């Protein structure tokens, strides 16, 4: 790494510089490991970029170091917060750390809504303290690995959370197995899900423990994601296959991380399936002179094989309407992951949730936050989770407020068990929607054999294409089918 030698450490002797560079390298690697433990993906090439960036800035200026590392290591706005916390823990001088987590961020002019710092910026942190930060940095870097890991603990964590974090680090070193460091975040989502949880608790007693576990499991899915791949035998094909055929309400807690990953992959498949680039056209349009000549160059320019223009295909707009009422709570993991997965990967998707009424949730996914934050905020702010089901009223709201979204190229994707009051009126609204869009596709978690004993479903079947969708395999089949014909 040639860049190592170019790290300027002014004011130190050559031995000190060499020593300092080694410490810096060790510390940087350690810092990156901590970031990775916080689910920030950093490649080797990005680590090298970070080193090269450090050689280009004034390393005695804390702010410049932060910006250099942030620009090269963290490529998502959502990860910036984690980065800021870890950076503060690793690189802030002790007196700043002692002032608490909020103080650390001050004086850092972000390119966004931060307290205004006109004409200041990176140089300011240095001037403010007027100290030899480089020396402090090196002194600080000499702390033991254990001390540093303890520093990465988030401010405000309880004793239990801190203990769990330390245990996680031990586990990363191959010691005893424990919980993931993102547990507190996941717990936060757990609290948010409480409301839905409480509402359906009554059902749990009747329907067995699976529904109850599902809530806690949503959280665990985030936690264990990192470690699933490390677990011996994880990802075995047979396990994966059995998971594909398991009813999603019966899937064991330990499998939720893999369910989450599979749903994410399937959602991405849907997003890429509707790419319009490689579609074959049946109908012929105008002659495409350019492609025709290109094709016939090999015939000496004689036009033998004619090529035609084809009409450009617009990607269909997808409108996702998900049932989050009490009766769907057993499928909480599926619904939550499906909303999140699809809303994040399909461009231009409009997402709604409904129970007694309908609510637009598209904006929650535009903020680019991660799974736990997005879903926590969605659940906290929405009053729909776990209520009764009134599809009629919900579709009425849709037609009243969002009618403009309905267009001949749009697909409406409904995820629901179709258990609703006022089914006839709901079917009438569904018909109106069907008349205005290309198709209505309904993913029903109830088994197909029960549909025809159910008056509501028979009504809805007149105006939509309904697919049974209670296992991942069924979801896979639906997404692979010609569901979205463009």
């Amino acid at each position: 790494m040639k860049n190592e030698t170019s790290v300027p450490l002014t004011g130190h002797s050559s031995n000190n510089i060499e020593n300092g560079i080694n410490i810096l390298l060790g510390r940087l690697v350690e810092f990156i490991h901590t970031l990775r433990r916080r689910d920030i993906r950093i490649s080797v090439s990005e680590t090298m970029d970070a080193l090269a960036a450090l050689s280009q800035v004034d390393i005695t200026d804390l702010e410049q170091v932060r910006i250099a590392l942030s620009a090269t290591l963290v490529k998502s706005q959502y990860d910036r917060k984690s980065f800021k916390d870890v950076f503060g823990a690793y690189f802030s001088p002790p007196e700043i750390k002692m002032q608490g987590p909020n103080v650390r961020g001050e004086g850092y002019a972000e390119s966004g809504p931060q307290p205004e710092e006109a004409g200041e910026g990176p140089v300011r942190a240095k001037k403010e303290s007027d100290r030899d930060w480089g020396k402090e940095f090196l002194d600080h870097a000499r702390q033991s690995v254990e001390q540093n890991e303890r520093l990465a603990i988030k401010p405000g964590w309880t004793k239990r959370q801190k203990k769990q974090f330390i245990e996680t680090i031990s586990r990363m070193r191959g010691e005893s197995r424990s919980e993931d460091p993102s547990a507190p975040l996941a717990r936060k989502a757990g609290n948010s899900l409480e409301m839905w949880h409480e509402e359906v608790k009554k059902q749990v007693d009747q329907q067995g423990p699976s529904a109850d576990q599902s809530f806690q499991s949503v959280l665990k899915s985030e936690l264990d994601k990192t470690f699933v791949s490390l677990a011996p035998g994880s990802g075995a094909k047979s396990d994966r296959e059995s998971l594909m055929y398991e009813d999603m309400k019966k899937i064991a807690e330990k499998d939720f991380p893999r369910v989450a990953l599979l749903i994410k992959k399937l959602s991405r498949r849907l997003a890429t399936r509707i790419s319009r680039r490689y579609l074959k056209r049946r109908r012929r349009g105008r002659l495409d002179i350019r492609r025709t000549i290109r094709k016939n160059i090999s015939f000496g320019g004689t036009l033998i094989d004619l090529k035609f223009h084809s009409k450009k295909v617009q990607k269909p707009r997808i409108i996702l309407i998900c049932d989050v009422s009490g009766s769907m709570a057993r499928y909480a993991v599926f619904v939550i992951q499906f909303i999140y997965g699809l809303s994040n990967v399909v461009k231009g998707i409009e997402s709604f949730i409904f129970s007694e009424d309908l609510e637009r949730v598209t904006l929650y996914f535009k903020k680019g936050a991660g799974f736990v934050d997005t879903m926590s905020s969605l659940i906290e702010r929405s009053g729909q989770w776990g209520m009764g089901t009134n599809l009629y009223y919900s579709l009425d709201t849709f037609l009243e407020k969002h009618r403009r979204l309905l267009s001949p190229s749009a697909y409406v994707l409904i995820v629901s068990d179709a258990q609703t009051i006022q089914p006839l009126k709901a079917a009438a609204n569904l018909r109106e929607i069907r008349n205005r869009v290309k198709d209505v596709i309904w993913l029903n978690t109830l088994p197909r054999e029960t549909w025809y004993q159910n008056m509501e479903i028979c009504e809805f079947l007149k105006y939509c294409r309904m697919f049974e969708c209670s296992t991942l395999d069924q979801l896979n089949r639906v997404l692979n089918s010609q569901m979205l014909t463009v």
Partner: protein
Amino acid sequence: MDLKQLTIDGLYKAFEEQGYICEKSLVVTVFLALKLGKPLLVEGAPGVGKTEIGKVLSRVFDAELIRLQCYEGLDENKALYEWNYQKQLLRIQLQKEGVGTGMVERDLFSVEYLLERPLLKAINSEKPVVLLIDEVDKVEEEFEAFLFELLSDFQVSIPEMGTVIARQIPIVVLTSNRERDISDGLKRRCVYLFIDYPTVDKEVRILQVKAPEAGERLSREVARAVNLIRANDGIGKKPAISESIDWARALVALGVDTLSQESIKQTLNIVLKNKEDIETIVREVGVKALAATQKA
């Protein structure tokens, strides 16, 4: 400005001279991208000044700006190169007629018959250029993968000719509105910058530069009102900085020197561009609250 002699302060000053008001942290990131010879990936909401960075850089370095506007369906033929088939065909016909000297196949696939598109033009340029790949989140993932080779090695492969290596490393700026996630591979090759909506004070400074006729008082009122509008998550499209500028100019054109309920009602359509958003703001924030920003 010479890239070798570039300093953070120098770049900051140059940005200001070009009328680009920003924090120094933004300049440090741009500086790093330039010094490391890496593409700069700028993410942020529409209208926060992402594209402008490419334009400002071209002016600062007195370099040609080559812009590739991305859209769904953009492919290599439109972004990289295309053979000039008409010319090739004419050449073949002339050869048949016995005009010209003996031609071999490779002559038909030489630079003479190559039509440069923005990407090839950027790496083939003798002089430094700024390559602006705008709204990269609009292209399909296949095209993103195609960009990898260009952005990591600054070279492209043309099957009939071989590998074309950049004569000089262009300054590359990619922008994204975050309509979808950019792939990790592309992000890995870039230096990352996120631009959020400006603070009130920053927006006042921008307004003073871009619409000086509005004066400080009106600029501050407009900036506060726009800030209040942006804080509402219920609207579909948040106002861009250019719309704040347009609003200030519109108010000046109407002879308004301070925001009032009346003037807001008359001009809210300048800053909010659809009926639902206007209704949402009037209902949830209220014209009165927007007008009250003068007292804040």
